[in-house]
């Protein structure tokens, strides 16, 4: 990152300005309904957390530089400038109190896509030097080490060796010409290696040819979270280079929400061209295998269980049906939370909030939303499909002394594969 200044910040805001943003700012009538869609408002009652308010610095740039009336007001000295102090004051609203979950964008009566605006506004904040230390550090590690948690390939190689020794399965690395290249999140490598094992089992049974790249295994993208296209581009590019080198047809985005947004939706725009490969989310792939009869399971979970829809995979990613199709394959007592699917409430840790230590107290507070959704259901197990959601939910449940095991959907499917002795 080059030196951050307010001028660079203002320039970044200008670079992000486009017709959608201008139409959104032009349309807001301060009705306040977005507040009621945001867990940071509903769980604190503090009006400063109203989603549209988080955009005040960006709005000023729009008004003062992109509207005739605003330009006139500026000439007459009637407008409030965007200063370092303003960005400093707003930084916690933009980074600690927004998970980019996009729920507000679903309810705005004039149609404002507020989370889209916040994602873009962060570009200005980070260019001006106003981003939380936690996410800055994660971004630095991602660029220099290759992973936001500082996981290097030897650590992954050790986990792979471990799994191979334990299970007798093979986890292919750097194999050229296979169909799929799987990405992982650091959290999956370090905290939930079961995911890798699940992939190996499922792909073996379904006859899927796949590999992991030793050069680009990390799926997470801190650049997307901090709002720096430069960092995000660099990280996406590593995956693109590795996938092209291994000549794969598909890249599999793991059970991680923002990784999917990064590689599936933002990636091609960051590098400025379409990919030579397709990106599939692991749940999409599993659902395809299910539909074509290549994924065979046996036995059913009879626990009462529910599914937490990760925002970036479901509401912002469009992977709507696969999770439920897969759950219905292995669970006989599945119940949806109130406000499921594209209206689900965020766990509170998305959009870089989980990497931001400063936000922890607030994050625990707003977890009450998920808690009350779960209290209503009285379930035995919570299933999800994002390593970050999973960790955040586990922490939240512990904080509120709720004993509900949290399981990754891919692992749950793997446990029910036909021919497994564990059943």
């Amino acid at each position, binding site marked *: 990152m080059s030196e951050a200044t307010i001028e660079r910040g203002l320039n970044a805001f200008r670079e992000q300005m486009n*017709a959608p943003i201008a139409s959104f700012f032009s349309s807001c009538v301060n009705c306040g309904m977005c507040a009621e869609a945001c867990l940071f408002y509903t769980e604190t009652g503090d009006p400063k957390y109203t989603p549209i308010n988080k955009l005040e610095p960006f709005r000023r740039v729009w008004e003062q530089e992109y509207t005739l009336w605003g330009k006139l007001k500026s000439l007459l000295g009637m407008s409030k400038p965007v200063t370092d102090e303003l960005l400093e004051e707003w930084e916690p609203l933009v980074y600690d109190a927004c998970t980019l979950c996009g729920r507000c964008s679903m309810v705005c009566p004039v149609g404002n896509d507020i989370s889209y605006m916040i994602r873009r506004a962060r570009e200005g904040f980070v260019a001006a030097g106003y981003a939380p230390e936690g996410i800055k550090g994660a971004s630095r590690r991602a660029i220099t080490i290759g992973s936001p948690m500082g996981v290097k390939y030897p650590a992954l190689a050790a986990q792979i060796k471990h799994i191979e020794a334990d299970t007798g399965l093979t986890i292919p690395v750097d194999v050229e010409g296979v169909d799929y290249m799987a990405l992982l999140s650091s959290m999956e490598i370090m905290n939930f290696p079961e995911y890798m094992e699940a992939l190996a089992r499922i792909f073996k049974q379904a006859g899927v040819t796949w590999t992991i790249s030793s050069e680009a295994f990390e799926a997470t993208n801190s650049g997307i979270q901090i709002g720096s296209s430069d960092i995000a581009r660099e990280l996406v590019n590593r995956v693109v280079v590795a996938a092209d080198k291994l000549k794969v047809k598909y890249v599999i985005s793991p059970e991680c929400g923002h990784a999917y947004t990064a590689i599936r939706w933002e990636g091609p725009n960051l590098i400025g061209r379409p990919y030579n490969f397709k990106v599939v989310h692991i749940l999409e792939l599993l659902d395809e295998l299910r539909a074509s009869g290549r994924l065979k399971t046996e036995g059913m979970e009879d626990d009462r269980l529910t599914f937490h829809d990760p925002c970036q995979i479901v509401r912002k990613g469009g992977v709507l049906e696969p999770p439920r199709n897969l759950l219905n394959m292995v669970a006989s007592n599945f119940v949806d939370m109130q*406000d499921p699917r594209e209206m689900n409430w965020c766990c509170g840790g998305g959009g870089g909030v989980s990497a931001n230590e400063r936000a922890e107290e607030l994050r625990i507070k707003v977890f009450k939303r998920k808690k009350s959704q779960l209290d209503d259901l009285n379930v035995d197990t919570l299933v999800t499909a994002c390593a970050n959601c999973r960790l955040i939910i586990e922490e939240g449940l512990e904080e509120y002394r709720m004993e509900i095991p949290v399981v990754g959907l891919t692992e749950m499917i793997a446990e029910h594969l036909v021919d497994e002795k564990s059943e």
Partner: protein
Amino acid sequence: MDFLLWVRGPGFDIALVVFLIGILIRLLEVLILGRKPDYSEPRGAELGAGLRTVLTRTLPEQGSFKRSPFTVVGGYVWHIGFFITLFLFVPHIELINATIGLSWPGIASNLIDAVAAVTIVALLAMLFNRLSHPVKQFLSGPEDYLTWLVTFLPMLTGYLAYHRMIDPYPLVLGLHILSVELLMVVFPFTKLMHAFTFIIARWYNGAMAGRRGVQS
């Protein structure tokens, strides 16, 4: 009466020119910015999803309705009431007919009277709500109150004129027309523009979500 002649003549012309050119400029200011091409492989088509959202956002999402019933109901009542009095009051239709040659049937004036009364009450209630609701009060600035005022005044003066509550009649009629001109002049420079830009905003919202396979 000179005042009435002015507001009906040059005053109205000035307001109309500012209104139309202002709106044109504002819409161009938005659209001219465009957006970059999206290279991600679409899961769904943008056009249809965008158009659908333009329509569906007219109804509130269920949970939002439960959490903001007053905003939703109040919003419907005064918007609908405002448009009924504006476009279905016979003298208004005659004015439009004389100006642009378009005409349609109106509704009985005593019914318009009742609708206007409800609209005025709803607008007052919305103002009270804006001043007292923690979120709205927090968000609101001078522009929010200005736009409320210029929307309210035509309703109020129209009501007063219809009931001849101010003497002489040409004065109150002149005030009514002047208040409409004020609304027209203020319109392009404020968030009243949402009356046009909401279509663009909803379309982009729906299109961008639709591309990802979600109907927003």
